[in-house]
């Protein structure tokens, strides 16, 4: 049974969950009203997770390949709860494991509909229509009512999670910073886990970042960070009053999944874009890859995000850096559109190894543009800019423009930049997080400036 597990971690977690004590409800049923779990055609149960409400888990045993459905937010399939339910069932059948007390209650409506739809697809596939279920089952028209109902349920979950978060933050504010510093680390992890259960991973991420600010002396950084979280809670509470782009911005900050198909349906004619570079980071158990594109026509930046379970590698190959091609880029329609989706990636021969010269901003303009972006997206963590012409100061690593303004450089070898510059000024394209600049692409910035041109 464990062979169905997507990875060893899921298998281990499922083993731990396959204890009847963790399952307040365990049911097995069949169309012939079989009383014994061994004759069951489907299983369903409720598993107590980290949230208030238990997860609803269903398993369809009628097909050779078992199918699972679970209300947990896991992206793995089958999830640990589905596997654990199967393990409990098999253990009971073989008398080897803990059987638990199995009932024969009818599955809740959500699971009944799922089981019915699976049955319908199976029947259609077995019929004269053909063996290919995709062909056999005509594209079912989306049920707007059901969709709205699902949406409402999800929104209720998010709302409940954010309400809890706001109350929890008020407790922190009431107790003050010294009390917060004494809290064990699991406090933050547990709150983040509750937000994951509430399908608000963006808020969970911000909660996990709290310990980074805990020990700053004056508490300003942590208070600002909590303010950012409070803004998420307030935004959600007032979401009906928001415009569509503002709502997209909020959903994006909450880490809501994008309806890629719907977004890409609206993409226009492909245009020339250049891949300026990418940054890969690991946060918790998730690897994130940020690939920055720049539109050749006007220098507009676009961010492509890819995610993968930590250490498993990305399923989507990386885009070729410093290459230009015609791409169908579709922005998420937020107030400050940066994140985008790609409507297909061209084949390698269609990429050209070129990085067109584009105007670069001074460092003062960088700060001003970032401030304007923050006004549109208060949760903005980083944006991409081209700064230049700049010269590099090696120790500490900084980029200095012709006006004497400087930004600290991160993840950059200043000597490599100086070597690349060959004595001349540079244009740097990179990520700016409001404090440090991470260069991704380096270009020579035309004729060298002399010392007198640097106005300190």
């Amino acid at each position, binding site marked *: 049974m464990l062979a169905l597990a997507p990875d060893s971690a899921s298998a281990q977690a499922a083993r731990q969950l396959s204890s009847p004590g963790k399952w307040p409800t365990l049911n097995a049923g069949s169309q012939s009203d079989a009383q014994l779990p061994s004759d069951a055609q489907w299983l369903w149960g409720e598993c107590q997770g980290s949230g208030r409400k238990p997860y609803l888990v269903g398993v369809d045993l009628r097909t050779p390949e078992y199918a699972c459905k679970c209300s947990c937010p896991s992206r793995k399939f089958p999830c640990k709860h589905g596997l654990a339910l199967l393990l409990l069932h098999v253990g009971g059948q073989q008398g080897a494991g803990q059987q638990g007390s199995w009932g024969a209650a009818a599955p809740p409506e959500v699971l009944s509909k799922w089981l019915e739809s699976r049955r319908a697809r199976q029947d259609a596939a077995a019929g004269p229509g053909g063996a290919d279920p995709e062909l056999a089952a005509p594209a079912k028209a989306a049920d707007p009512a059901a969709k709205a109902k699902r949406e409402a349920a999800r929104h209720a979950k998010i709302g409940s999670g954010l309400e809890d978060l706001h109350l929890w933050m008020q407790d922190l504010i009431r107790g003050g910073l010294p009390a917060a510093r004494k809290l064990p680390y699991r406090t933050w992890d547990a709150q983040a886990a509750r937000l994951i259960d509430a399908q608000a991973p963006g808020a969970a991420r911000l909660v996990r970042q709290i310990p980074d600010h805990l020990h700053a002396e004056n508490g300003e950084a942590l208070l600002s960070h909590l303010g950012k979280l409070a803004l998420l809670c307030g935004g959600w509470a007032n979401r009906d009053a928001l415009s569509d782009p503002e709502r997209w911005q909020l959903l994006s900050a909450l880490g809501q999944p994008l309806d890629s198909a719907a977004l890409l349906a609206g993409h226009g004619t492909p245009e020339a874009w250049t891949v300026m570079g990418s940054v890969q980071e690991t946060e918790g158990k998730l690897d994130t890859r940020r690939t920055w594109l720049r539109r050749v026509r006007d220098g507009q930046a676009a961010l492509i995000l890819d995610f993968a379970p930590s250490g498993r590698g990305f399923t989507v190959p990386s885009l070729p850096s410093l290459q230009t091609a015609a791409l169908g880029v579709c922005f998420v329609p937020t107030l400050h559109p940066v994140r985008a989706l790609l409507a297909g990636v061209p084949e390698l021969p269609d990429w050209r190894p070129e990085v067109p010269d584009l105007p670069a901003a001074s460092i003062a303009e960088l700060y001003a543009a970032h401030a304007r972006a923050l006004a549109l997206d*208060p949760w903005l963590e980083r944006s991409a800019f081209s700064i230049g012409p700049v010269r590099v100061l090696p120790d500490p690593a900084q980029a200095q423009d012709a006006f004497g303004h400087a930004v600290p450089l991160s993840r950059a070898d200043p000597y490599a930049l100086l070597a690349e510059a060959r004595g001349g000024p540079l244009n740097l394209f990179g990520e700016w997080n409001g404090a440090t600049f991470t260069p991704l692409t380096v270009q020579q910035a035309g004729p060298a400036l002399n010392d007198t041109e640097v106005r300190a």
Partner: protein
Amino acid sequence: MSAESQAGELQALAATFLRGTARAELPALPGGPLGEALARVQLPTPEETLLARAALGGLHSQAGRVPAKVQTPAPVFAEGETETRRPVPAALLALFPSLIYQPEVLYQTLGLLNQANLTLPAPAALPLLALTDGGTDGLSGPLWALLDEHGRWLARLNPEWKRHDPATPPDALRLTRLRRELVEAHAADPEATAAELLSRWPTLKADERRTVLGAVAGSLHPADWPLLHLAIKDKLPDLKRRALLLQGHLPGEIQDAVRAALPTWFRREKGKLKMVAGQSVAALGQPEARDRRDHGDSELSRLLGAFPTAELLMLLDLDVQTLLNAIKKYMSQSGNPQPWLVQGTEQQVLEDLERASVGGLTLKDLEALRLAVTPDSLVYWPRARLEALLWEATAKLLRVSQENHALAFLVQSLTSALPSLPDSVQELEQPPQESKKGLLSRLASAFRPAPETARDWPRRWEKLARWIQDELVREVQHYVSPLPALLNTVALALDLSRPDPIGPEPQLSEAVPEGTNEQQQHARAIALYSQQMRSRASLIPILTMRRRVQGALAERE
């Protein structure tokens, strides 16, 4: 709005958070646009109000940042004279990322590039400059020579790399270079060098005078007498003492007195060597040691320091290890709990003795050579002496009968040492002495060609390899342990074209009577030899890389 005002509002909010709203009131907000905006945020509880105000204040603070101005101007490279050398070809540049992991080849490659009058562009030089962070002087010399003007400018910006700049060397490096130059010059022409040093002596700084004395100490010559006399009058006590002791290294009254006194410090009792306080030599002056515990300067250290270490062993009829043990034991009994932590002259004498122990034949002696032969050795010995030592070591390797993994390690060290000596391959001009017969002579004469005959090396190598095989069949047990390692050494240092100079494995000799112990030993030796030769596989990537470097250079030409 000023940055101070922005910081003030957020600071006031944070001050409340520091104590917690359970104990602190919400702060009174100053006037101004932000203060007024914050004041308009009023929610049912103080906690909600503070959180909402923090959101606004934090955002305002983040968006209101202004860039810092840096007064220090960024470094600017000004193109100077046109570089006449050509850059390293691209095919060779592509090898550099791999070369970093093969120091033996890297040293050689840098030397070859310098000979070919090429330059290394700054981006390619950066990873190599980073290698010099650990103070690898042996690498920094040829690397600096390869840098073009831009590369040198860049390297001087980094405080670590700048230390290796030959143009502005730090004191330690400058003194090392001075000493190395003097060691060479003094060995080559002691009279001229001594005369020049004598004239320069009054203008030299204290550290330079110490360096000069240290440099001539390794190859003292009667021409150095005037210099030693001058140094004895120096105002520095340590310099005076050193000069005094060095006088004993030259034939004369002091040396005679020391020669007479030294044996009185050693006594044999029941076959064991024991040290006792013996005669002192008035000419060596009064030691500064106030008691026997002070080992910086004692009668013994003066006696030992005032006699050529190479002759010391002959005079006392002792081997190095016995002498060292006796000295250390005596010092330990004198109250020094850590006899290896000796200072001053004693340390100098011990070091000299250890270096002199290279003349021995035991594995320990060879280990001593391993420790001694480094690029830094050039501050003690002239290059010719060092190269002679290397050949001497190869000869000993052939004579050492012990099977010991340390030998392989030793040879590996020598392997690294050979190419790191500047131009060592090209300058192996010292002919092997007539007394070194057999394989060593063959090896040495085979690989001591004049530069114009270098293309003849492969043929010489093949001839030698055939001879080795013939020899091995008869005397395989004699060569089994050192030979593969030795051949690796020589192959790495000298063979530029042949990756695998050794042919088929040696066969069991028919001359050895069947069924005898001798035959069993012979068979075991062959098996071991074969096993060791197989371990040469680890050298293949190095040899391959060397061939690729050669190939890339040849294409350029």
